């Protein structure tokens, strides 16, 4: 059997890399699993580095996403979207770059559904070529994906068969990790654990690299190190999405992002990508540009109680 049919064990004892080294592991045309979801724990610093390195033709897969996929689309890095949702919920609405590139044909629409994705990743994890699902039949996803059907040999029930999906690479951002690549995710893991277990390569940024002992004291690894290919400490690496307990969702920055994206692809390049991505080759420069220490303190103020938490979300980013 070819090695392509086996998933690897990443046994190295020191997997620390720089952010550019991490991003260099992603190749043009890769199927990329995206960690986090909606306004939370998306690997934004790593995605900005991918954009700076000029990565193209990515096929992005994930569950419910927002600014991460939209930014990649706006930078011309995506050719296929197999997400189940890309938007800003009711907060800002539709994702402008995603919508524009899907409608122009630059991005091919290959929408998934959450459970279908889960079962496709699980098939890979179980080492089987497909898994049956009870749902999907009768909807247009049957046609969009040409799913094969099967009559159950035991019960006679009709089931849809979803093929195993093995992302070339998954990019994740976790709160804690150690140098071996053990990752600890706090709060909802979304699809990150399934992505880590089903992908050929797993690249992780973490808020804090800690010793294996400290990771253990914090509750242990959510994703054991042997699934992980490389790790990089990038504090504020999920900004402007949230990475609790360190920082809440940066709603004003997201509002500013949304306005520039909505104004068109040229405006988005000039007013967002240029200042916040291309002009900040180092993550530290980005952090200074978005507000530095004052911002860090403001986004950590959710810990001061519900009133302080509410203030982070009040009066900013009003959209008509």
């Amino acid at each position: 059997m070819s090695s392509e049919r086996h998933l690897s064990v990443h046994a190295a004892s020191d997997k620390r890399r720089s952010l550019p080294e991490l991003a260099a592991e992603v190749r043009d045309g890769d199927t990329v699993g995206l960690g986090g979801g909606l306004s939370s724990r998306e690997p934004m610093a790593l995605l900005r580095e991918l954009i700076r390195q000029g990565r193209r033709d990515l096929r992005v897969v994930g569950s419910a996403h927002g600014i991460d996929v939209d930014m990649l689309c706006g930078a011309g890095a995506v050719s296929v979207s197999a997400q189940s949702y890309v938007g800003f919920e009711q907060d800002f609405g539709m994702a402008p770059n995603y919508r524009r590139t899907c409608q122009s044909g630059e991005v091919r629409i290959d929408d998934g559904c959450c459970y279908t994705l889960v079962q496709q990743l699980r098939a890979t994890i179980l080492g089987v070529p497909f898994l049956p699902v009870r749902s999907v039949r009768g909807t247009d996803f049957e046609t969009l994906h040409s799913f094969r059907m099967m009559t159950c040999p035991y019960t006679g029930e009709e089931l849809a068969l979803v093929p195993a999906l093995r992302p070339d690479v998954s990019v994740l951002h976790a709160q804690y990790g150690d140098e071996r690549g053990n990752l600890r995710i706090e709060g909802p893991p979304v699809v990150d654990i399934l992505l880590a277990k089903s992908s050929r390569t797993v690249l992780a940024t973490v808020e804090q690299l800690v010793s294996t002992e400290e990771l253990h004291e914090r509750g242990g690894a959510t994703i054991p190190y042997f699934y992980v290919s490389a790790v990089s400490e990038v504090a504020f690496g999920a900004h402007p999405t949230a990475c609790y307990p360190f920082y809440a969702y940066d709603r004003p920055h997201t509002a500013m992002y949304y306005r520039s994206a909505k104004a068109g692809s040229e405006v988005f390049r000039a007013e967002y990508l240029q200042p916040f991505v291309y002009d900040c080759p180092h993550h530290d420069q980005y952090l200074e540009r978005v507000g530095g220490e004052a911002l860090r303190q403001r986004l950590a103020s959710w810990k001061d109680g519900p009133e302080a938490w509410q203030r982070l979300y009040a009066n900013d980013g009003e959209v008509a």
Partner: protein
Amino acid sequence: MTGYCTLGEAMVYALSRTVEDRTLVFHGFGSPLVQLALHLAKHTHAPDMVLVAGATYGVNPTPPFLAPTSNDWVMDRGAEASLRIEELFDLAASGRMGRMFLSGLQIDPWGNANVTLLGDGASAAAQGALPKLKLPGGGGGCNLSCDAERITLWTAGHRSVSGRKGKQFRLVPECDFITNLGHRAVDGTPRRELGHRGQGPDWLITELGVFDFDPYGHLRLRAVYPDTTVDEIREHTDFSPVVADELETVGLPDAEMISFLRALDPLGVHLQELRPEDRERRFDLTG
């Protein structure tokens, strides 16, 4: 004291009334009206419902306030447990999910909903045809529309909008793409012949009225708001809706419920789901 309720509060109340006690109920993301409705139901008639929050998959959370986005730690504070994504969807696939709430940018008479794309449909899209409008996508709605025992549909955008291309309807004769299954499949097969676990949608709550489904699986208008009429609903529906023999007026929450809702949503997050003209609608609480 409170002498009125808003349209948003009336919609939340109507949504909450579709929840049965002692069942497992899930709200998705991007749905503050539904999030409020589940907390209201748990606060009133359904204290023993198992409330699972969308995006965080927290079980019976007690958020201090409604956050502007769903995957925020605000939304799972106080949760008794947190499910993983596979566990949540497994619950539905194996028949444990009693109710889910789904919406659409198009909803047809059988309760099918489209949140994927406007344009020439799935076959064309599969061959690379460009959509007129790419919608955000349905999350896990496709799966849950088949698996959850019951579905409540809702939209705060029933009223048609006049644009350059004429009137744009939310309630349409046929969806361009069926993201979420109602009572009739893409090829016209009745839902019951597909053998799905779930029984399909039984309610549709809009800003103009409340619908259920008749025995043929067709939308049926059951109630209007104090300020809407059947004629108005016909005008804004791109097919002829069945109208119940005895049309009712939508029930309104009481003062205590309204206080509960206002305390839970101090930022007015649910108003983002409503169109500006609907944010001003108020109903007197008399009798």
